[in-house]
């Protein structure tokens, strides 16, 4: 029987929240991939999406606002044998955490970033998020937003992510497949998940998205360059394309780059190296002298 990935915690998102669609797709994807709970780590930031780990029966690290990516980076680098998934909101990943978002792309570390994109900061009562288009006034805002929206896929593509896709929280089959593909990719994968915020975003509702969504058809994600992918992934007033826009399997992952410098990195991952024996360091006096011979001065005889 397939494993269930739910926990006993009551899920306290608003009824109808897009996050329900996301977490249920995660359950299905994990189940189909048969992930071992203790070898899988879901890392999240702050906000509604930040609660994800508590609702999934794998290890979970609910971190700081904007910092899910660097936490995940440390976990993955120290133990590359773990499956590491980041969940963050639009404000979390592209507002307060934008620097880390770019850095992960530059590294191409084997992590999937799932961005919960409802265009508002829900948990603090609906302020404008970095993906809210300029001049939009949701019901929670005093005045229309005067900041332009950032295009998450374009930013991911110029930052170096090697797997870039968009899905929709309320299309569980599409999302489940997108999560699986992102996890199976070896390198930094970005999945932008559009979702409604039923409480604070009265403009970008499920209906709004459903009316505009067009699934990619006849698009060769592995055969295009990032510029073409940026153009194709662009959100237009009348059309929001969903699917995998870009995939690059040639660029070495961060793990491979580290192995280039520390050849036994993947055989002796940091988390599993032996560092002590009977309460003593494994570095003996002779090894210490040999390691630091450049600093040792012999007195003349």
């Amino acid at each position: 029987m397939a494993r269930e990935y739910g926990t006993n915690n009551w899920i306290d998102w608003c009824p109808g929240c897009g996050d329900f669609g996301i977490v249920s797709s995660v359950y299905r994807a994990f189940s189909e991939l048969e992930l071992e709970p203790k070898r899988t780590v879901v890392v999240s930031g702050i906000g509604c999406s930040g609660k994800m780990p508590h609702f999934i029966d794998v290890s979970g690290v609910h971190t700081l606002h904007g910092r899910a990516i660097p936490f995940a980076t440390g976990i993955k680098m120290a133990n590359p044998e773990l499956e590491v998934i980041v969940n963050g909101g639009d404000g979390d990943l592209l507002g307060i955490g934008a620097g880390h978002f770019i850095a992960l792309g530059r590294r191409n570390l084997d992590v999937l970033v799932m961005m919960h994109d409802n265009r508002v900061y829900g948990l603090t009562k609906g302020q404008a998020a970095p993906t809210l288009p300029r001049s939009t006034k949701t019901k929670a805002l005093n005045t229309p937003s005067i900041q332009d929206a950032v295009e998450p896929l374009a930013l991911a593509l110029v930052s170096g992510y090697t797997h870039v896709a968009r899905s929709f929280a309320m299309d569980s089959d599409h999302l489940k497949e997108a999560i699986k593909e992102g996890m199976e990719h070896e390198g930094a994968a970005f999945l932008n998940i559009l979702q409604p915020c039923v409480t604070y975003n009265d403009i970008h509702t499920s209906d709004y998205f459903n009316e505009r969504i067009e699934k990619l058809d006849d698009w060769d994600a592995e055969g295009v360059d990032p510029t073409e992918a940026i153009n194709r992934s662009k959100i237009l007033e009348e059309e929001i394309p969903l699917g995998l826009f870009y995939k690059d399997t040639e660029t070495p992952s961060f793990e491979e780059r580290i192995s280039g410098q520390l050849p036994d990195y993947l055989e002796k991952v940091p988390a599993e190296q032996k560092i002590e024996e009977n309460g003593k360091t494994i570095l003996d006096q002779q090894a210490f002298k040999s390691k630091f011979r450049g600093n040792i001065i012999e007195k003349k005889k």
Partner: protein
Amino acid sequence: MTEKLNMILGGAQGSGLETTIQILSSAFASSGNGFLADREYYSNIKGRHSYAHAKVSSVEIPRSIDSEIDLLGCMDAETLFTHFQDIVKGGYLIYDASTGEKKQDSIKSIEDPLRKRLEESFEEMGIEGTVSSLVEYLKEEKDVEVIELDYPSILEDIQKEFDISSSQASRYVSSILIGAVSGLMGLEKDEVKKGIERKFEGKEKIAEQNMFLVKKVSEMVEDEHGSPLKLEGSGIDEDQLLMVNGNEITGMGKIAAGMRFQSYYPITPAADESFFIEQHASFDDGGNILVFQTEDELAAITSCIGSALTGTRSATATSGPGFALMVEGLGWAGINEVPIVITYYQRGGPSTGQPTRGSQDDLMNALYSSHGNFPRIVLVSGDHEEAFNDAVKAFNLAEKYQTPVIHLMDKFVANFVKTIPLPDISKVKIDRGELFDGEDYKRFKDGPISERAFLGSEVMWYTGSEHDAEGNVSEDPENRIKMHEKRMDKLKIADEEIDDRVIYFGPEDAEYLIVGWGSVKGVILDAMEDMDKDFGYLHFRCFSPFPFEEVSSYLEGREKVIAVEHSYSPRVSEVVSLNTGYQIENEVVKFTGRPIYRDELIDSLGNIIEGSNREVLKHGP
């Protein structure tokens, strides 16, 4: 008979001074001497004035330096203008004769306030202000013996000798100074040669050319002046010495402690530690250390925490401005009971402050930064030996008490180059604390210290929110009390268990008690030794948990208690007062960012005994 020598060697940043210091210090050490050098430099890559202020001793490893110097070695005119006043009567000066006509106003890198002070001095001295006039003055008025060398013509000779370009030859100025110093000190050529070969390993030609130059200059100097600065002493005992700065010895401690992950964002004076560890990241018989340069300090601490959650011994190294960004991560590690080590090298603040100068002004920042309350352990090291031991201890305490450890040092410890005996590695203990081995794991179960399992070995949850035993968010008031107490109680246990949080030097009932921590240790001990008054020194090694009983007992019954610190007003006095209620009423402070010199400390302690209660030290350019 001379057993010790104080010297300053100076030149423009990027002109080869570092090479001079490395080669000479190697030669001093292999000749059987102890060596200690302060490095002073601007936040600048090339062109501004930089110098090493060193003490060499043939009988012991120096612990402090003196403001008065026996020898000034100048690579350029600015060095002479900046330091001439510190040459002791009858001291020695090495300078470039071709700079004779130079005046301070033609040297753009001299800062205006110094320019003004120089103008005033020259007027008082009645000289016109050229290098030659100043040299003449020093000869006549201060009996300084001058070693006058024409650097360009020496370089021209070597250019011809080896048929090299003039730009290549100009890089050999460092060896002129090496030659002159080794001549005056009568260093054996073989020892200098070893230093050169060590420095230019794999570059035989460059080593050979430098050696040629050194030999030539030292013979010139010996012929004319002899070797009046030859150190006469038995030499120090050790057959092998470690020549390290504080960044390096701390890196060695971390490596010995089994650290396998270090994150950092470039910052002075911490970055050299990460660079050093990276150079030693592979082990001969397998294994490796990840040294990870992050996009900012937010990522440095959070990636460090992530790594620590997998069971990897993890640390990050930074300075004040970087630590400011790490504070949110520190709090997360506190509430999640994550064993991380933050190596914190203080520099002058606030803000960018004095990025390349020393300070001890961040004690409160290390002790109290972060919102909310959680146990933290704060270790402080006063010299290279302490830095090594604390680097190891930091990981053991972090894992034993499952809480962040801040290892607080400063720019002086970071950049002081020192010869020390090799650490005894057999004494490096590793204690990984309570580890889980069972079923039905809950990360925060029982306590105060819960059993730790690593990500990858069990299913577990962490959250920066208040949480229950399983790591799930809980706002229940009783759970809050239970979990908050669980965490804070760890500090009580640590308070009962951690030894050696203060060290006391001097007679038990000394009339005058000096209180300090960190890099003031060496100069305090030397000053005490050289004063005929009855001094004791209470040296802090750990500020959290605060060693209440010991400190309280040491403070009692003294004629005077004096805090000595590199800060505007001693943080140690504030912390002692907060914890014990005792007000330390006297203080010797320095906040120029330059080290405290032995002689100025002696004078100021004398003034305190005479009735002053605040002495502000100012020496050092």
